[in-house]
């Protein structure tokens, strides 16, 4: 490939690629916004269900770490048991 041509190709790919990334993510932003508003209209969010996964009961104190561990173990133990029955 000629130097100039290579440079042109690179420039074109840069413009196109960057453009496409922006267009795609813009479409994604719009879709997500629409989706979220639809979902929230029909399924009003239950108080707080955000990132509360795997944060077992517990609270802040010296033995809360242990509490957390035990509840995780209970969970794991039950899952294991459930799996076999």
């Amino acid at each position, binding site marked *: 490939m000629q130097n100039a041509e290579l440079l042109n190709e690179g420039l074109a*790919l*840069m413009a196109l690629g*960057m453009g496409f*990334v922006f267009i795609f993510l813009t479409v*994604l932003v719009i879709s997500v916004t629409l989706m979220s508003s639809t*979902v929230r209209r029909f*399924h009003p969010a239950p108080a707080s*269900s*955000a990132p509360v996964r795997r944060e077992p009961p517990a609270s802040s104190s010296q033995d809360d770490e242990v509490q957390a561990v035990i509840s995780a173990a209970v969970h794991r133990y039950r899952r294991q048991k459930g799996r076999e029955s």
Partner: protein
Amino acid sequence: MDKVITLWEGSGLYNLQLGQAVMIVVGLVLLYLAIYKKFEPLLLVPIGFGGILANIPEAGLAISALDQAIEVAKPAVLQQIATALGVALDPLANAESWRVALKSVADGNASAEALRAAKYVAVNVGYSDGMLYNFYKVAIGTGVAPLIIFMGVGAMTDFGPLLANPRTLFLGAAAQFGIFATLFGAVALSSMGVMDFSLNQAAAIGIIGGADGPTSIYVSSVLAPELLGAIAVAAYAYMALVPLIQPPIMRLLTSKKEREITMTQLRPVSKLEKIIFPLMLLILVALFLPDAAPLLGMFCFGNLMRECGVVERLSDTAQNSLINIVTIILGLSVGSKLMAESFLSVETLGILGLGIVAFGIGTAAGVLMAKLMNLVSKMPINPLIGAAGVSAVPMAARVANKVGLEANPHNFLLMHAMGPNVAGVIGSAVAAGVMIKYLG
């Protein structure tokens, strides 16, 4: 006595080439960085170790049976191979020049049929494909390993912060400018004659700026497998260096006032939104960029397994034993590409240089995009979280948080930065799809 001589002539010390010695040291340096500097140890320990294995003289762990035979077999065997490949060997030349001639044909324009016949000769006299060569062929050659790791990453990713504030996707988009600017940089270096990168190679180098290990490996396995070793090493090393690379750029481009901006707390996101998101992303990919489907498809699949709540067994496995197994194999496979002859070149220096530029430009683009968004929008965005758009999950988000705390000790940006952070993963995969579309 003959046997003792054979042993000595077959030893590593007798056959050690300077390049191999250098590469073994490089492997040890990677291990040092991984173990003592905590540079992405999950990948760099296997990569570094694989790099040493690949450079053990005479062991041929990283090459095929045929290459192995061409490198070390006796002249009689070389002649058989030459017949199979349809090459006429100069009877007056020595064995070394025969090896060179055969190697160039085998790597070059031999037909599938001839290669198969030559391989059959090599296997019949007792050579076999090296262990790392097999790992590479299965794990990276088919593309399966980076995809399965991406599935595991999807299963570990929480899109909650992104869904709570979808505008942060723009930051993830902007940070991909690092990729394309670097691509252009590599092309420019080549036109100036400083380096010699093809367009495909330039694209594979650019993707380092995506700050996403599996994406980098996948793209370079498709577009420029010969550079895979250097690209993977650069990608993981710079991801580990994010806490050093980013802060100066972030401080340079923002005023203290901007860094102090507090952001409103994120709304809770419902489980249903989290389940729909990966499916929606998949559909958009299907409609607009099918070439990103393998990467983003597996990513979305992992995330759906995580969020749907009914396949915890599978999600756990994808996040643990499966991703660990594949990581071990992938790391060793990447290491197999650290052979002296392909790694020790000026191109590798170019890749390392361009890679750090890519990270810098991506960081700057993310920050500037955030500032731009503050101009046109009322809801304030702390520009520091723009830097998290390069991905390097979760390191870049932590860096944004840390630099933010320096300016305002009560301003926790971590969750806000997770949005652009995971957006950067999507952005890089989209960029990868565009490149594969044109150059693949």
